[in-house]
């Protein structure tokens, strides 16, 4: 089935090349040593894949199987003999004879510090995976001191790169007001760890709309439309693929955001049902999240063969009529 020939021309479909399906694995194998064990992986495998193949749990934040690795969070770093710095397991390919440590002092220190740096500067209240990682690596982000006051509306969006003003007191954070400019989803960049996933999903990795990009520099770097233009004036087509890949809840369905604000969001009372999207012939798998007989959110499994978890505006948001019928 060719996506380009999808029957309804009004459905915004990806204009880029068809999603790349997992390539045929070449037969030749690479032998490496990991934590003292010898591991054999197909050529082209990453150290992360090698680790997973022998059950070593490697923490990741910016890696996602359906996106090109950007290797920016550095939580997955491992030690490779002969390499001065640590290397990112998510993108570094296994080379014959590599000797890798995934639990050394250096690895643990860097991972702990990466967590402490992120958690001391970003609101992780809707990113439960952090709690687990923090316990595992003994991270104590509070030691960097109390958080500095949050930025005012648009303050971070208008800062010029190059010369910050020295901090007055407290640990700098990315705290700022939530951006609510449309009916479908909100952007709470105080929760953004700058993993680049949304930018990739909006760009060549899935949507090819390029509504958002990384702007600014250093600690002022941020995800933005051009000149912080509201989404309604931007190129955004509300496919929600950025929401689908965001690991921290910085991008969130407006319904979920409002229910959380009202204190009515309760995952323990939600069901998740997989179904096939009825809108067009592509046939994406939808996971429908239902609370109190209302559809509160729609996701799509990443290992879904057809579009690898990416959807369009209808599949993602077009369910209000179901709720209305009730």
């Amino acid at each position: 089935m060719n996506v380009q020939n999808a029957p309804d021309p009004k459905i915004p479909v990806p204009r880029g090349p068809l999603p790349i399906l997992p390539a045929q694995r070449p037969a030749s194998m690479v032998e490496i040593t990991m934590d003292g064990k010898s591991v054999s992986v197909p050529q082209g495998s990453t150290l992360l894949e090698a680790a997973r193949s022998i059950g070593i749990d490697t923490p990741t934040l910016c890696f996602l199987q359906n996106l090109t690795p950007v290797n920016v969070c550095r939580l997955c770093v491992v030690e490779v003999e002969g390499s001065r710095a640590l290397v990112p397991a998510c993108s570094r390919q296994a080379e014959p004879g590599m000797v890798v440590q995934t639990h050394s002092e250096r690895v643990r220190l860097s991972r702990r510090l990466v967590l402490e740096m992120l958690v001391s500067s970003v609101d992780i209240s809707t990113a439960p995976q952090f709690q687990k990682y923090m316990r595992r690596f003994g991270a104590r982000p509070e030691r960097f001191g109390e958080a500095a006051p949050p930025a005012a509306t648009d303050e971070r969006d208008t800062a010029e790169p190059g010369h910050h003003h020295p901090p007055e007191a407290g640990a700098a954070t990315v705290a700022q007001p939530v951006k609510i400019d449309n009916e479908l989803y909100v952007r709470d960049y105080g929760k953004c760890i700058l993993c680049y996933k949304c930018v990739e999903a909006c760009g060549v990795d899935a949507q090819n709309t390029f509504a958002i990009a990384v702007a600014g520099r250093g600690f002022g770097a941020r995800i933005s439309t051009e000149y912080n233009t509201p989404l309604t004036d931007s190129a955004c087509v509300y496919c929600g693929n950025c929401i689908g890949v965001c690991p921290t809840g910085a991008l969130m369905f407006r319904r979920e955001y409002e229910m959380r604000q009202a204190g009515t969001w309760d995952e323990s009372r939600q069901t998740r049902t997989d179904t096939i999207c009825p809108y067009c012939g592509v046939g994406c798998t939808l996971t429908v999240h239902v609370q109190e007989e209302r559809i509160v959110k729609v996701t799509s499994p990443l290992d879904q063969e057809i579009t690898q978890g990416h959807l369009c505006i209808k599949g993602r948001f077009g369910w209000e009529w179901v709720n209305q019928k009730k």
Partner: protein
Amino acid sequence: MDLHFTGATPAAEEKAAVDGVPLAAIGVRRRYLLPFLHAIQDRVGWISPGALNYVSRVLDVPPAEAFGVADFYGLFSTQQQPPAVAHVCDDIACKAKGADRLRAELQKAQGPEGSSKDGKSTWRRTPCLGLCERAPAALVRVAGERHSEQALAPASASDIRAALQGTQFTPPTLRASVPQMGQAGLTLLRRVGQVNPESLAEYRASGGSLALRRAFEMGPAAVVREMIESKLAGRGGAAFPCGQKWNSMLSAALPRYLICNADESEPGTFKDRVLMEGDPYALIESMIIAGFATGCEQGYLYIRGEYPLARRRLEHAIRECRTQFFLGNNILGSGTRFDIELHVGAGAYICGEETALMNSIEGKRGEPRNKPPLPTQVGLFGKPTIIQNVETLLNVLPIVTEGGKAFAAIGTEPSTGTKLFCLSGHVEKPGVYEVPFGATLRQLLDLAGGIAGSGKLQAVLIGGAAGAFLGPQDLDTPMTFEGTRAAGAALGSAVIMPFDDTVALREILIRIASFFRDESCGQCVPCRIGTVRQEEILQRLAAGKPLLSHATELVMLNEVGQAMRDASICGLGQTASSAIESALARFPVFPGEPSEANR
């Protein structure tokens, strides 16, 4: 691409500025993004939404991406600002020479940083402008149809104000930057100040083009052999053996590209500026030889945006060389084809990192790439690319004319040839000095007339902000790759910046920390946030207000440093703590706590 635009439209002068940029018929169009943004910034003083839409449309780049690029670079303003802007250096060499006083005077006369009384002019702080030998320095840019840029050094508040009003000053001669000028025995500095830098004929009359002819006779393989034999190591900071790099290009796929790294933004470094201002044709000749030897037909010269004079000289030289068969399709009748495209940076230290520089030429944010693959495999526009520093390239001329063996006989066994050093801060005669490798720190300081200021040396910064501090007890350290390494430092970009005993080292350290915070590209967590935490810890220690105790702050500082060194993507994060750690290990920097050295 199917792009969506906001309703903002460009003004006529913004359109005219973009349309006035000459375009080459071939190659990746997006590489015009920075040139277009420069044209708009130069014409109206900022990048407006309408102008950005126009550029995005012409280049078929999504506006959000183009904005992300414009907003990355310090010399592009995405907020409206007055057309005349003075960028006043508050970095470390200028600090030692009264930059804080200069700023206070400006503040009194012009109002606070970023403010404007008349809507026509303003001023702001900037990191090192590469004019440290004439500190304190400022760069004044006035946008308009006849836009002007001039470096003022030494700068006074009254000169800066006059320049903001349009007064043009005559730049001082290079003698102020090269105290050895005209002396016998110089190699790299031989022509600087002695031969007209704006005449190819005079360059050739002074021996220019001999090396190029020799290289054409020898052939590429022989040139690479001489390079290997010379044991020349890169002068840009990483000291990688050049011959090895050139050799690895020979088996690479075509096309291949050559880049000259003239981004020179390491605080305290100005040697490449002096070479480009003083001997631009020699750089072109070196690039042709490098291109010839490694099979590159296209060269790119990436010069930092804060070097207006060097850029004008190079623009002139490249134009002239093209008309005189010194660049183009048939250089000196040899049949060799080589041309140079000049790219101008826009205020981002990180763009000196080789892969960030490639992204910048490609019209992208200056974010370093992950290695491997190395640039010699996948470089500029995805093609095999060789990148060398300006000073490195200039060494190619004596290597070709005298031979690799003769070159290797100069200096020490591992550090061959002569070396340029950038002396600034508290020395009597600051400037660029050329000596054969092997001179000690003491000898170099003596060459520059000894310690200025109070005359009593407190500390010397070696290698720039990414380098390390040495103390009076280290004066006999040979300033070679191996000598500095043995002393726990690194030669880096050959900065030697002494501070007298009146300087508050903690302020210098905080300025260095703040530099890295500002210049981090922001891509990876250890550097983006680590540089912030590092600065905060230093601020607290300097204020005598540690969170728990002095000792716990030092533990945190140390751990942040280690994570940056170990887990950052590129050299910026990996070295962002090195100068600070070296100072804390050697000197009592903060009140109330003995340093390790005194314990």
